[in-house]
């Protein structure tokens, strides 16, 4: 029985049409040894939360270019909370102005990554954060965990 690979959901909410960036991230995280559930473009908040719930992911990664994040992300967070997926790490990337970051952090996003972020840095950030969370939750065991 080995350490469970980190499971990451990569989703693109909103209506912006291409997912090149999200695919690059998905591949980079796979190459970093993670299991990436890739759901593609035009994901509604409900679809994202449902996938995160069923797939029991450690990380939910949202990619957005359309500028609709301040509208969509709160709804996504709400749907996630409604389903009790409260231990997944929230990260986002894409085109997100500096001034929105505090509000996003307030919402529960622990990482906000701009277009310039290297995929190595992203993978390292995820590995460190998930590592910490796993250590913490190992101290408070819950059923079937």
């Amino acid at each position, binding site marked *: 029985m080995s350490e469970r*690979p980190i499971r990451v959901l990569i989703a693109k909410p909103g209506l912006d049409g291409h997912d090149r960036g999200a695919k690059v991230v998905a591949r980079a995280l796979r190459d970093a*040894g*993670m*299991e990436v559930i*890739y759901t593609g473009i035009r994901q509604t908040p409900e679809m994202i939360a449902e996938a995160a719930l069923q797939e029991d992911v450690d990380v939910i990664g949202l990619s957005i270019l359309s500028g609709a994040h301040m509208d969509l992300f709160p709804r996504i967070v709400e749907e996630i909370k409604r389903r009790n997926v409260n231990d997944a790490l929230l990260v986002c990337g894409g085109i997100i102005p500096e001034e929105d970051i505090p509000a996003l952090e307030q919402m529960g996003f622990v990482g906000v990554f701009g277009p310039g972020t290297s995929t190595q840095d992203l993978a390292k950030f995820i590995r460190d954060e998930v590592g910490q969370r796993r250590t913490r939750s190992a101290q408070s065991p819950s059923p079937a965990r």
Partner: protein
Amino acid sequence: MDTEWIEAVRAGNPRAVARAISAVERGGPGAHAVIAALFPFTGRAQIIGVTGAPGTGKSTLVNELAKYYRRRGDRVGIVAVDPTSPFTGGAILGDRLRMQDLSGDPGVFIRSMATRGSLGGLASATFDAVQVLDAAGFDLILVETVGAGQSEVDIAKNAQTTVVVDAPGLGDEIQAIKAGILEIADVLVVNKADRDGAGATVAALEMNLNLKPKSEKSWRPPVLKTVAIRGEGTGDVVDWIGKHRAYLEAEHLLKAKERARFRSELDMVLQRELMSRLLSHLDGDEMDSLVDKMASREMDVYQVANQLLHAAERSQA
């Protein structure tokens, strides 16, 4: 262990189901405890395997099949397995991408799994996930695997009905036969029938079926054409899955199939457990030095294996 989560799984609570699957997927004592608690409540679901070469349209077909079964009122569980990269241990699990029609339906639960390359463990882990869904009251469980090797064939053995998906222009009919994939097909589907060459693919599959020795009673798989992206022909696939099910019932083969499955599962688990127990008694350095002896042609593989087995027996005694 407290029993609240068992009730939650049995009630189909998605969070409890998701976590139970994670636990069985991780293996070890935690997994065994989950199965021990849920096993008495399994055995009700109809299990359908969908396998075939990469990209033939399996996920698209699963999406269509699930929609049919939902209309019939069944609760549908889906386990979609994709390969783990042998180099990085990571995986991209992309099957959900083709199953978006099912999103938002509380009667559907989709779980993606990576093969994780454990020793013969894939079929067990997949089947354990199926058992969780079975205990959670899903009436029908679809298991998608990429038909590439023995472990996929093992997974198919766990299904009551196996649908093998092919597509024109892959040139892999021969490949499929090699992998024994045709042997396990109860229903053959030539998807992407909107493309050139579908007729030739059907003919090639029919020819291969004709080569198989026939007995009066045995099941002959139909070869069906579909265009899964447009939902064309998928109703026929549902009908034939139903006919195969009726055949299994009429011939009293369901119990026999289940027994065969338990037997092969037992073999697999014994192999795995014996191997890991054995390895826990062996010293890695000693194994390395014995491999050196093989490299220098001092000892052959049987001599080395026997020596290690004796050493393990001694340390157990």
